[in-house]
């Protein structure tokens, strides 16, 4: 099994940070020195150029989530932190893989990519490069299935996530909460 299961140990934090030099290093250094485990990490600019968003999947068995969030919040360039529990998040990830696909197995690989609704983005003499976007568990399954054909190279982006939308008539638009353990996370959120 892949390490990227969606068991309850994995919580997703989306961390809004100032878009300044060295901010990712501050976040990574914090996790390292306090002994928190990161399962995956993705960084991208936001639609506001002053800020970037870091999506971190943390192992909550390595440290209490409350501590991880509060320590993160102490970093001056961290503006807000949203915590998504596995059951309240829409999580997606992208996988690229180059797979052995000799003529006798090529059809099977193509079929598998079709079943998973992936795409073939490059074709070589005896291999294929495929792309698959989806929920992390789906990527785990795909990865398990193509392994027997021979994976030459495989990369995953680490997951990004947004809160599930709330479909009830009243209440907030989404089901996520920006944890308001200090007023500034509330304000900034």
């Amino acid at each position, binding site marked *: 099994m892949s390490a990227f299961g969606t068991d309850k140990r994995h919580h997703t934090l989306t961390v809004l940070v*100032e878009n300044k030099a060295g901010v990712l*290093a501050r976040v990574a250094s*914090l996790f390292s020195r306090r002994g928190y485990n990161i399962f995956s990490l993705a960084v991208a600019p936001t639609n506001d150029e002053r800020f970037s968003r870091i999506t971190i999947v943390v192992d909550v068995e390595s440290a209490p989530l409350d501590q991880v969030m509060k320590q993160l919040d102490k970093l001056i360039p961290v503006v807000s932190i949203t915590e998504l529990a596995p059951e309240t998040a829409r999580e997606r990830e992208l996988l690229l893989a180059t797979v052995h696909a000799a003529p006798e197995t090529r059809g099977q690989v193509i079929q598998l990519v079709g079943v998973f609704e992936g795409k073939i983005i490059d074709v070589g003499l005896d291999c294929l490069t495929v792309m698959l976007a989806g929920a992390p568990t789906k990527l785990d399954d795909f990865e398990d299935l193509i392994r027997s054909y021979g994976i030459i190279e495989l990369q995953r982006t680490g997951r990004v996530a947004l809160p599930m939308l709330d479909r009830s008539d009243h209440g907030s638009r989404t089901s996520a909460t920006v944890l308001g353990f200090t*007023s*500034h996370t509330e304000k900034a959120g």
Partner: protein
Amino acid sequence: MELTGAQALIKSLEKQQVEVMFGLPGGAILPVYDPIIDSSIRHILVRHEQGAGHMAEGYAQVTGRPGVAIVTSGPGATNIVTPLADAYMDSIPLVVVTGQVATSSIGSDAFQESDITGITMGITKHNWLITDAADIPRVVAEAFHVATTGRPGPVLIDVPKDVAQASMEWYWPQPSDLDLPGYHPVTEGDPELIRQAAELILAAERPVLYAGGGILKAGASEGLRELAERTGIPVVTTLMARGSFPDSHPLCLGMPGMHGNYTAVTAMQRSDLLIALGSRFDDRVTGRVDAFAPEAKVVHVDIDPAEHHKVRRADVAITGDCRSVIDDLLAALDAQGLPHSDATRGGSGGAPIDAVEGAPAVPGSVAASLPRARLSPWRARLSEWQERFPLVYDPADTSGGLKPQMVLETLRDATPDDTIVASGVGQHQMFASQWWKFDYPNTWVNSGGLGTMGFAVPAAIGAKVGRPDRTVWAVDGDGCFQMTAQELVTASSERIPVKIAILNNAYLGMVRQWQEMFYEERYSEVYLSPDLPDYVGWAESMGCVGIRVESPEEVAPAIDKANSIDDRPVVIDFRTDASEKVFPMVASGSSNDDIVVDPSQIRGDR
């Protein structure tokens, strides 16, 4: 007005009302040293950059204002890493300015280049690498704001040489110009949580106020005293909080922790409610965490919410500044019907918190003259422990040299009550904390969290610069003294008359104590020699008065002589007994229930 970056930097420090900075110039910081000549800011030239950092810490701890240090790039910057780590652990506001190689050279392994913002990322509250001279005033304003608000701490500003040389149009930022969208410390406690805390306090039968360094940082000593007196709840003051509540007050139990006194440690162990005020359940206080205060509920007030539930789960966790929360708590106690009583204010029960001469404290038990009848059984137990397990030593036994406790008692009694005491780290630090009587806030300057040997001499110098009106004594060990003694040259040349008491037992004493107790007296690399170096000769060569004291009858005259000298530093080399150990002691990893008292108290000799 057009200024160079260097001029803008110094002008910005002046705008922040900096009166003194501690530093040492070098290549990359050269441009910044030029405008220092024309500045109103006093610059104290240290002999090693570590000294600059600890001086700034000592200054900050006694004045409550941020300490400022300025050093060059590379080794200058790395030499101040230890003080930054120290200040981070003890939440001391520092602003450190480092030179950096020119921006075009950064990353090229240039001469005296080091990635100081990377190195200090984990030991500063925040740091900045300035890449545009126009940012200098704003960054300086941000740096002072971050260092001094919320949970205070050290910050670092890295200034490349070309940025210092570039020109910029001077401005001074308004508070709204600060670019800190992620920084909004909370100072006011949540009223509902404060109400819950008040309920717990009124229901408790064996409560203890567990005061930490946050009391001093918040200037909450008066509030703490009112809270203690109105509720009748006894107070323990941690190593970082010595002086935040007067030792002479009948409700003061003194220091808890690994070398705390029996009553303070055991009061917490048996307590049913710990009211933690700006304290952080440090491992030296709790001993083995799962055996710490097993019956106690916890109210935890801290300005840093990350301290809540970090070590010990709190029943009520209040984020806020201690002064503000204590005031609100007093109001909540009023609202819940806690009667006002003058019985314990001032007068006979009161300690001399604002009396310079120090009115005599009520001797004896904590049970004296307290209002809350319901707590009487608790206070009676505490008094029993205090009578049964006071701090002890045998003054008559002088066979092995001076008793360090006796030296400290004599020193304490021969100096003004508001004397500032700085210490290094080790046995002498614990003896000083145990045997001094701290009746005033901000009179105890030590390295608590990091445990930095060599802290005392430079910290005392910084303290004396901050409070020239006070007598400043450093209580140091011989091991510590050798680490930073060169700063006495700084003190002599700058006419900063600090006084140093070296408790010279010729050993790394605390390590020796552990080797004696836990390593079957196998002494590994702890012997230092009593007279190599010759401390008196060394002191005199640095422009100080040096005095050696070997016999008990010389102790008081030597201290009197030192106290009479006010134009240069004085160093007294007290030859102390190497076999003397610090008791009580909770061994590392043990439960506080397994506190080891002085052997004489077990045998029942006294």
